[in-house]
């Protein structure tokens, strides 16, 4: 397991809450993650030292900012094993997904075409496709999940047809935490001439990703779920696809020239998609987040979470009042309920013990029917969690039926 005691020292938020009345046990990492000091410092460094805009100026400061932005782009490209020109900075996964939907989906799909999703997708991988469907009359269908809620290549093979143009799925689903075999899915999609869009919001922070090996066509991620700042993320796209798709935001910085007759010459990707001033400070921080993750090692992080998850599952299974919905899942996500307690009531009870978890439908609203419950509690682990966090959760859930304690103490 990772040396969590030392890792925690890198994250100022833990120290800043050391003297709180209750402990800070953060188990909502699928929502967002805390930032190491190196990331926070890099973000400040932009404002303290560099300050200029990117892609604009003719002076030293601006030149330096450009270099830093491109350094992060190259870093992310090596992190994912692709070319820098295949990395588009966005505000995060939602924007990346929307860019694919608007820039590729609306441009190339038509009536009679089909988009394949699953019932376990996050809203950001569903709603943009609803828009594509509404605009182009392409149809949305769902790859059936198996009994546990997993999406398998076999299931894709059963439903895919020659009309399928897009298969868009999460590599790790945000409620159930199953790891999907994207490589095999992409292979099947390509056999039918469809593209594969991979939502990596919940996978990129926790496992090594090699987009060339996966052979996915697009991949979307958010920095803030992987120790980086909020408001920055990326879209990876195969260069030929990026070249032929449209930007969905037009403006300064994405064109070479335009005239009053409406003629525009857009820049090559990725600049074509990066109109307007980006969140430059966050790009500085994102670069450091990648460094931090690489120093620990994605494989080590994955193994740490796996071990901690097993520990948690074995421990929580002892509790008769707890229902676990995804015992066999792969990622550090545990979805549960306390019998007879509404998830939000339980989450606020856990809050009174200093435990941060997410209750609700977790944006995957379609799952409701499958899990046969209106909502759940999601526990999501990361590199700064250890067994003591799980023990605290266990102790709190043990008494979880008395959830109104939180209201009166």
């Amino acid at each position, binding site marked *: 397991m990772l040396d969590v005691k030392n890792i925690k020292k890198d994250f100022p938020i833990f120290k800043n809450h050391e003297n709180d009345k209750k402990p800070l046990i953060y188990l909502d990492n699928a929502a967002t993650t805390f930032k190491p000091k190196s990331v926070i410092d890099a973000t400040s460094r932009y404002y303290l030292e560099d300050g200029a805009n990117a892609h604009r100026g003719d002076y030293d400061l601006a030149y330096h900012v450009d270099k830093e932005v491109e350094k992060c782009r190259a870093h992310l490209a090596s992190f994912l094993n692709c070319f820098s020109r295949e990395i588009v900075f966005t505000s995060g996964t939602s924007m990346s997904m929307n860019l694919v939907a608007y820039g590729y989906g609306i441009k190339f799909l038509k009536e009679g075409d089909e988009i394949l999703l699953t019932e376990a997708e996050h809203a950001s991988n569903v709603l943009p496709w609803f828009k594509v469907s509404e605009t182009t009359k392409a149809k949305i269908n769902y790859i059936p999940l198996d009994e546990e809620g997993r999406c398998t290549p076999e299931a894709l093979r059963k439903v895919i047809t020659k009309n399928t143009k897009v298969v868009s799925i999460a590599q790790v689903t945000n409620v159930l935490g199953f790891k999907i075999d994207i490589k095999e899915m992409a292979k099947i999609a390509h056999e039918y001439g469809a593209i594969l869009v991979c939502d990596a919001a919940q996978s990129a922070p926790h496992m090594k990703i090699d987009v060339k090996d996966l052979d996915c066509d697009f991949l979307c991620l958010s920095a803030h779920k992987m120790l980086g700042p909020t408001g920055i993320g990326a879209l990876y796209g195969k260069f030929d696809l990026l070249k032929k798709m449209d930007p969905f935001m037009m403006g300064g910085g994405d064109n070479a020239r335009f005239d009053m007759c409406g003629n525009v010459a857009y820049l090559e990707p990725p600049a074509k998609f990066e109109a307007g001033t980006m969140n430059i400070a966050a790009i500085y921080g994102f670069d450091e987040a990648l460094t931090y993750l690489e120093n620990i090692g994605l494989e080590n992080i994955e193994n740490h979470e796996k071990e901690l998850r097993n520990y948690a599952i074995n421990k929580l299974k002892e509790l008769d009042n707890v229902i676990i919905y995804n015992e066999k899942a792969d990622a550090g996500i545990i979805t549960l309920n306390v019998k007879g307690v509404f998830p*939000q009531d339980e989450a606020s009870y856990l*809050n009174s013990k200093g435990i941060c978890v997410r209750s609700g439908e977790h944006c995957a609203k379609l799952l409701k029917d499958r899990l046969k419950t*209106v909502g759940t509690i999601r526990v999501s682990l990361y590199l700064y969690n250890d067994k003591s966090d799980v023990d605290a959760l266990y102790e709190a859930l043990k008494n979880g039926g008395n*959830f*109104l304690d939180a209201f009166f103490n």
Partner: protein
Amino acid sequence: MLSLTNEMKREIIMEHYNSPNNKVEDITKISNFENFRKIRMDSDSCIDDITIYLDIENDVIKNAYFSGVACAISTASTDILCDMVKNKSEKDALYIISQYENMLYEKEYDSEVLEELNAFSETHKQAARIKCATLGAFGISKILNGENDE
């Protein structure tokens, strides 16, 4: 009203959560339901999703019901409110709601009119739950202020 101990408050909330008086599975089984005014209250920040129905005749609330799913705090507060607004004029009902909101937001309030709603006087200590405690109240005041879902 006598001041409530925490134990009593807890009992009131659990009682109205576990066996609400005014919760219906299917509103169409209630006679005259076609004439009820209704509003759906679903929250963007949680999974609470209830619909409130008021049967109003000549500015008097004859009956109040709700359906849907919600947490203990939302369910219990909505149920108590439904009990309390029955047979009251619209004006009196709005007065109760305004005093209830004052209590939740730690302003001065008239605890006499709040009856069992006094069980929620500690809500501000769990500020994230104020939204739960006001879901039903906002719904009822929306209807009384003229909103009506088709």
